[in-house]
């Protein structure tokens, strides 16, 4: 059996670990609340602008805008949004697994990976993947300009035909304890099919200035906004995952401490019993000797 001192030391070390995980949980909870507010504020705008784009695109007979051009996907670009930091449960590994699956699907095509977040970058860099640019260390203070920079880069790659299809892989924030893995096509813009009552959606608009000009103005904003939304989703999901992971860790540490304390008490009792029996035994021996 382990010595008393060893057990005591282990209890001490687990206690300090528990303090750290508890503190990290609190920090994640505070950040989560802010992240949650941000994503809830950004969502309606992102969805509405998406809707408007869909209406416009559906009405255009032959789209001339290069951002709508659908090419045979020879070169596929995967944009993988992970966190910059670990200690958030299976958050990063889930998204990386999903991304490798996606890459596998396009095995016979040329696949390149754009990493947003350091964890994904570290993973794909060490393996045999073709890498695009990476955007790391931005979640510490995520800003709209970051989203703009990313969107600009992706649009440029698409227009230069270095990527025929761009796919976003990210975690959607569903609730504090739940994230959804999402795979979405970013470019070219997908025409969604309007079904059934959908014909009611296809109203004849009057456009001001013109349909093309409107689309031209709207598209970059739409794309920026989608990237921005994805960043916020992922950030909120990350904080949620970290909070849950740290909560579990704190609980597990508590359990360990409980078990070890029990072990410690048992060992102490055993030691006392042993000592007493030794003393009694010694006294008996003395008595019989005299």
């Amino acid at each position, binding site marked *: 059996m382990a010595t008393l001192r060893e057990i005591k030391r282990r209890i001490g070390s687990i206690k300090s670990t528990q303090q750290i995980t508890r503190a990290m949980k609190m920090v994640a909870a505070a950040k989560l609340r802010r992240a949650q507010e941000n994503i809830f504020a950004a969502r*309606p705008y992102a969805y509405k602008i998406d809707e*408007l784009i869909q209406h416009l695109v559906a009405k255009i007979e032959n789209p001339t805008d290069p951002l709508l051009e659908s090419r045979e996907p020879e070169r596929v670009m995967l944009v993988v949004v992970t966190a910059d930091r670990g200690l958030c449960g299976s958050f990063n590994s889930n998204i990386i697994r999903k991304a490798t699956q996606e890459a596998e699907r396009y095995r016979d095509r040329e696949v390149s990976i754009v990493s947003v977040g350091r964890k994904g970058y570290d993973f794909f860099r060490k393996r045999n993947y073709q890498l695009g640019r990476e955007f790391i260390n931005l979640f510490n203070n995520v800003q709209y300009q970051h989203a703009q920079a990313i969107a600009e880069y992706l649009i440029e790659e698409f227009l230069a035909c270095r990527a025929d299809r761009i796919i976003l892989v990210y975690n959607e924030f569903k609730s504090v304890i739940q994230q959804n893995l999402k795979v979405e096509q970013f470019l070219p813009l997908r025409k969604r099919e309007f079904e059934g009552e959908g014909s009611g959606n296809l109203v004849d608009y009057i456009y*001001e200035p013109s349909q093309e000009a409107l689309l031209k103005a709207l598209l970059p904003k739409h794309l920026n*906004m989608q990237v921005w939304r994805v960043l916020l989703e992922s950030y909120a999901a990350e904080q949620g995952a970290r909070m849950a992971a740290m909560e579990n860790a704190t609980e597990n540490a508590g359990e360990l401490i409980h078990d070890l304390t029990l072990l410690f008490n048992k060992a102490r009792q055993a030691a006392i019993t042993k000592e007493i029996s030794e003393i009694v035994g010694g006294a008996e021996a003395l008595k019989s000797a005299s």
Partner: protein
Amino acid sequence: MADKRLRLEIVTPQRHLAYEEVVSCSAPGVLGYFQILPDHTEFVSELTIGEIKVEFSDHTKFFATTGGFLEVVNNRVLLLLEACEAAEEIDIDRALRALERAKRRLQEQSPDVDLMRARAALLRATNRLKIAQKLSLAV
């Protein structure tokens, strides 16, 4: 006709406002200001910097915007704006400071000043001030 009303939604990346019972709404289109009344035809327009006026039967609200898009479908007006401030929310001091800064930048004419941006800032500041003043006049 008189009892027909509009439903109006203002959506920006920061917030989401919705109004019922709107009598009319005017907005700064890229080709000039226009007004939306009930039973307006389906319409999409790009908006530029300016003032958005929302009229209710008993009062009127003013908003400052830097631009965006407007959609009208079936008596529902959707405003997708990059930024939007209600007249009563405008921080006049901040707007004045921004105005001063933009003016100074424009006068300096040093090569490292982005003229386009300075001009846009000037426009934004004057727009906000104009709308904020409208409110103080009404009170």
